[in-house]
């Protein structure tokens, strides 16, 4: 079975072995190549085995498939010149009787032990922290990976994804070896899996042998932290795909045929080079062998460029990019624009100045051979993004954050750390703070209501020049996934999504707009009032259902847009008119307004004490030194981490007392109104209260919503209402201003006028038709309060609705 062609290569592997790596073997004695048991399963993916399909001891008949993701061993500069997959040449089975530990050349990996350990891992590992949704359909109390093997036998997809973290928790030593020597250890894993698999399912037929794909190597690093020490190690980095190349067929093995005697031979491609045999072994003619392209073996390869995610970048620097090679079935798995986590082996290859010259540019080219892709935004489309979003917090950081959370005044501290350059408006800042934390996600899809909105929407309205935009800018800068648009400059399409033809592929692609891009973030919309009506109408769906439906150019879909909206609006008449209601001031449809949890007014209070504080604040803002500033306020980075931590790890639930308090609060709110025949609260307000209370619990890092949270939510909600839903005529808070666009007193007044009009007409006796103007004058003469034309028109309309009369032009006719 040992093919003659591979022998010289193996020899080279031994003799010229430079071993830049540490040589960890306790006994450097190497077996001669022919002493190695070639029937050992260690013969991983050698050409002979593939061609002849020779059954191996344990793996019957299923062909192994080359793994160019690992196999391009020979490309690494300082790696030993193994001409064979590493496990095949230097590796030696353990010899217990000799009592010596034999390891793969250049590593401290003992194949036997490693295999055993991994099999043990597969057979025994039960994930203690597993949750139901992550492993749908799997029994959590049974060994996880055995179930996965079973799945493979049923589905027939011979890929086993292994979570490195689980390996680590099971056997730290094995994990270390996997990270340090992936190209030796992973084939060993493959072997172990296949043995195990075919033992258990001897009859199953797979396309090729199972390949192990580890992912989630502990150090999910960002690209910036990669350094020369990571070369040839297993790494996981996250990034965004910016470009993918065409498929490249890469020759794995060249097929030569002798022109004289038709003797054929195969040569493996070594570091991108083919060692063309000069002499035919059969007829001994020199230079008679010719390459036959279509009998050579090729594998698919694709170059992918990834770029650092914008979140990982320090300010003022440009993002780094890295080249990734995807092989075989990983080709075309990702598209430009995808955010992915890649697990792979980091490689460095020297660059030649030219093939002829011996001088080398002293620079290496680096790339990653991808072993596993994990799209992070794919999960975003489907549901909660658990670990994709997970920013890694160091122990210290978590400790500081927890200490901060334990302080009794953490809520005040955080809110004052928010946009310190903006003066006062404490309640608004608190509202925005709660918005940043958001409520708890709840899923009621079983009961048919779908997702409850967890995001808090806030509208700021008020005089121009009250730093609304600045607040929006600040929030936009603070959150990782924020979008900032201006109402004037955005179209419905720009906010939602649009279909366009990709110039390269000529395919229709969906380009997402600001709202979709800010999924799980905050969408800041400035000049909300300047937005056109059609644009605003798309917000309806987003702000309550948190989805976006698109039906355009044959693409019908629903996208998630779980975004919190922070909007700012100016009053219609450049200055806020305190005599008018909110609706009248900003001229927004009440259907939209009722979707905001909190509506704040930012007004210029115009009193002396305030002015003095403001002046002091501004002057100190301008003339404080940098250090003072830092002392005084929490760092923006701390705040950002605090929010990120709370958002990922804290999911508060309502406690019993809290739910009682909420019920009471709601009932109270309803009572206020019912006394005056008004409705002062709707279920939507209750939902707002719940969200706010949850967010407040998150601020405290508490897993339980308690009464204090409800109290604060109530207070804040009341404050916001007091500001925005006060009926200017009566001075009472009237929620119907926001929900129906008209205060209850106004509605009552309309009713009265209509009744008075009806009486007037009835008093006139049987006149079928009347002049409009005269009727108005008569009514005015009769009524003691002023009657505007609008009021009169409305009264007429309501009578027309009763089918009492009809208005045609300038005449009013009675019906019936």
């Amino acid at each position, binding site marked *: 079975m040992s093919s003659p062609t591979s022998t010289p290569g193996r020899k080279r592997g031994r003799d010229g072995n430079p071993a*830049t790596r540490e040589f960890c073997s306790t006994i450097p004695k190497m077996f001669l190549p022919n002493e190695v048991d070639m029937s050992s399963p260690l013969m991983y993916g050698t050409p002979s085995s593939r061609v002849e399909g020779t059954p191996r001891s344990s793996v019957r008949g299923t062909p192994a498939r080359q793994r160019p993701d690992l196999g391009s061993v020979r490309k690494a*500069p*300082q790696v030993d*010149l193994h001409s064979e997959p590493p496990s095949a040449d230097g590796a030696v089975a353990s010899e217990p009787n000799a009592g010596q530990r034999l390891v793969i050349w250049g590593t401290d990996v003992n194949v036997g032990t490693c295999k055993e350990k991994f099999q043990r891992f597969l057979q025994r590992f039960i994930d203690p922290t597993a949750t139901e949704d992550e492993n749908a359909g799997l029994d959590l109390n049974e060994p996880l990976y055995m179930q996965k093997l079973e799945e493979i036998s049923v589905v027939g997809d011979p890929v086993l994804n292994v979570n490195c973290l689980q390996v680590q928790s099971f056997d730290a030593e094995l994990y270390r070896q996997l990270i340090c020597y992936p190209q030796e250890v992973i084939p060993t894993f493959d072997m172990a899996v296949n043995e195990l698999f075919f033992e258990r399912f001897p009859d199953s037929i797979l396309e090729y042998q199972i390949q192990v794909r580890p992912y989630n190597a502990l150090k999910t690093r960002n690209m910036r932290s990669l*350094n*020369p020490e990571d070369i040839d190690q297993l790494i996981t980095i996250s990034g*965004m795909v*910016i*470009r993918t*190349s065409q498929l*490249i067929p890469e*020759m794995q093995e060249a097929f030569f045929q002798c022109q004289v005697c038709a003797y054929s031979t195969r040569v493996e*491609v070594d570091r*991108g*080079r083919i060692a063309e045999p000069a002499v035919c072994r059969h007829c001994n003619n020199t230079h008679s062998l010719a390459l036959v392209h279509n009998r050579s073996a090729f594998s698919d390869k694709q170059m992918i*460029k990834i770029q650092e995610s914008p979140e990982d*970048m320090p*300010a*003022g*620097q*440009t*993002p*780094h*990019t*890295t*080249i990734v090679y995807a092989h075989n079935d990983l080709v075309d798995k990702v598209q*430009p624009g995808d955010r992915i986590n890649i697990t792979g082996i980091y490689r460095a290859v*020297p660059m030649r*100045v*030219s093939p002829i*010259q011996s*001088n*080398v*540019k*002293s*620079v*290496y*080219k680096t790339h990653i051979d991808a072993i596993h892709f994990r799209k992070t935004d794919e999960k975003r489309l489907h549901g909660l993004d658990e670990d994709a979003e997970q920013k890694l917090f160091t122990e210290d950081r978590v400790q500081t954050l927890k200490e901060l959370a334990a302080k009794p005044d953490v809520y005040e501290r955080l809110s004052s750390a928010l*946009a*310190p*350059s903006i*003066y006062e408006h404490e309640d608004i800042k608190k509202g925005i703070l709660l918005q940043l934390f958001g409520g708890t996600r709840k899923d009621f899809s079983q009961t048919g209501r779908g997702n409850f909105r967890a995001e808090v929407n806030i509208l700021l309205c008020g005089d121009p*020049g009250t*730093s609304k935009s*600045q607040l929006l*800018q*600040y929030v936009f*800068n603070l959150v990782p996934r924020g979008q900032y648009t201006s109402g004037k*400059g955005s179209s419905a399409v720009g906010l939602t999504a649009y279909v366009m033809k990709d110039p390269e592929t000529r395919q229709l692609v969906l380009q997402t707009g600001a709202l979709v891009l800010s999924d799980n973030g905050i969408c800041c919309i400035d000049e909300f009032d300047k937005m056109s009506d059609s644009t605003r109408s798309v917000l309806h769906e987003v702000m309550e259902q948190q989805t976006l439906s698109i039906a355009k150019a044959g693409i019908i879909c629903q996208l998630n847009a779980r975004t919190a909206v922070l909007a700012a609006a100016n009053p219609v008449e450049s200055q806020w008119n305190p005599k008018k209601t909110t609706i009248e001031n900003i001229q927004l449809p009440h259907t939209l307004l009722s979707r905001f949890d909190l509506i704040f007014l930012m007004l*210029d209070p115009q009193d*002396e004490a305030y*002015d003095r504080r*403001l*002046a002091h604040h*501004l*002057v*100190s803002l*301008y*003339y404080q030194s940098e250090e003072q500033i830092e002392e005084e306020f929490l760092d*923006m980075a701390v705040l950002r981490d605090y929010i990120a931590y709370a958002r990922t790890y804290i999911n508060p639930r309502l406690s019993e007392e809290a739910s009682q308090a909420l019920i009471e609060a709601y009932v109270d709110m309803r009572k206020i109104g019912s006394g005056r025949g008004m409705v002062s609260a709707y279920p939507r307000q209750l939902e707002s209260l719940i969200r706010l209370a949850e967010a407040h619990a998150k601020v405290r890092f508490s897993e339980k919503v308690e009464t204090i949270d409800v109290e604060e939510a109530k207070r804040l909600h009341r404050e916001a209402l007091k500001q925005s839903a006060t009926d200017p005529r009566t001075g009472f808070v009237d929620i119907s201003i926001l929900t129906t666009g008209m205060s209850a007193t106004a509605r009552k007044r309309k009713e009265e006028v209509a009744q008075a009009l009806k009486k007037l007409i009835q008093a006139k006796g049987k006149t079928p038709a009347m002049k409009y103007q005269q009727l108005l004058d008569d009514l005015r003469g009769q009524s003691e309060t002023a009657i505007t034309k609008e009021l009169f028109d409305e009264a007429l309309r309501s009578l027309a609705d009763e089918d009492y009369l009809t208005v045609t032009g300038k005449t009013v006719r009675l019906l019936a």
Partner: protein
Amino acid sequence: NVTTAYCNPKSGWEAKVVEFFKDRLKEKDAHTWVPSLNDVPLHYLKPNSLVKFRCLIQDMFDPEFFMGAYETVDPSTNVLRCGRYKDVTECGVDFNSRNTVTAERQTFYCVPIPGENPWVKEISSSSRVVPSTSYAPTRQKRSYEEDDMDDMDTQPQKQREPHSASQGHTEQHGNGDCKRQETEAPSSQTASASHLDLNFPLPGEKGPSCLVKVYEDWDSFKLNDTLEVFGILSVSPALSALADEKDASSSILDPTESMETAEEQRVHSPPASLVPRLHMLYARPLPHNNPLLPSATLEDNSAFLSSTLSEMASVRAELLTYLTHVLLGDALAAEYLILHLISNVYARRDVLPLGKFAMNLSGCPAAALYTQRFYQIIQQLVPSSFYLGMSLQNMNQMRLVPKKDYVANRLVSGALQLARNTFLFLDETHLEQGQLDTTGVRNVTALGNLISWQKVDYDFNYHQMEFPCNINVLIASEGRSLLPSDCQIHLQSQVSPPNMEEYLSNIQLHPQTSSQLNKFRIYLSVARQLDYSISDEMTKSVEDDFVDMRKDDPQSVSAEDLHRMLVVARLLSLSLGQTSLTRDSWLRAKHIDMLRRSRMEQHQCVNGNEP
């Protein structure tokens, strides 16, 4: 001679080398002995010698791994060699040596400071001490041979001898290119730009761009930083050979090589004759690029500082007279112009940039290209500036915002990629009616963002990234500008319309002597860099003032007005050379702001314009 001592690239070991150079350069005037890439043509510079380069970091490439130390294959010369500060290894490298050390370095693409005015270039090149062996314009051929001699020192065996003839040829060729570019600058610039875009932020810029290799501490550099880089020049012809032979050699056997697109190749390894490599030893961040100021920071140079400070008030008066003359006899506008010219973003509180003072000079006469003439005068005063005519065509076509080109993997520059304290002159008088297309709208938004937040959102295709900047924006317009500004002042011409033509043509002459001009230049740069503080008593009195003003009429003064008045007061004090606010300056600031506002109201009444 200090420079020759530096020429040997193997003078020491890493940290020590850097220390050594730093120390030597600190010596009095030592840095003036180093030839500068900015003013010495590339072919006059000796390869592998120490040069300096005054530049702006335009783009940051990916970090690269290189052989920090390596062994050669040939056992007879088998010594450990150092790969630092070099692009190409010598002899054959033994890839399998266990002594190979892989190290990391970062590459920055640097361009000369955009918009640097001619007088800056003139003065800085003339201040250089000329005699230096590496600067040998008369013996160009000879200098190359010398270089060869140097090489021999470092290479015990002359392996490169057989190649040297061909290398000499390439070198010559490269030189020829350079020379042509140097002599017939404008025409050949466009020609060479067609095959190699040097990516200057502003159109019509000249000068070498450079790939600067940074060996340590590269995280401390930021995009758009201005630096003076001291480093070893590398123009190895092998680097250009790389690009040429690439196409021929790429084949199926070497798929890694064909991965990089041709564009990327061109950008990341351009011919060294056009874009030399500079291996950084040491870089000095430039707080300003005014060559008239001593290079040490102001704090370190108290003698200079005190002498300028004492003169400041008088220079200011002179400058005011001159600018009043330029601004058609409008003293108030001239006063504001001075404040604008010395404004500077000195801090940022979260998103709010402090100290910015974008000015809108409205009421500019459209006649006789007044705005252009005005700009030419400013150009004489500030170290770097850019004139952007806001015509429809310009707005729709110009690239203002830098954009990432993923095919070539570089940041394609835009006109708003400017160094700090660049003076940006927006001429709105050229604007006519018409439609802005998408690019136009984006450009106007970018300008608006620049003015209000002092930041530019660079376009990374899949996302945007925000880069803070510090640019003085002056908008010249006839009516109120369509862009926001911190302060608008309406020009009140003291010249009657019939005399305008004549008056304007007189302005063009520079009424001052060059020494006076230099005084102005120094004055503006120094005033901008002064520290400033405000005492507690002044804080109190400012607060009182504000409360009083609001008491009389709450509508008259808003928080925004206070913001502006504080900036005006700051700039006013600095313009007089005072480093803390005094009662007088505050009152004066209030006074001129009031004058300005009343003028605007007047103007509004006349014009009937909405605010």
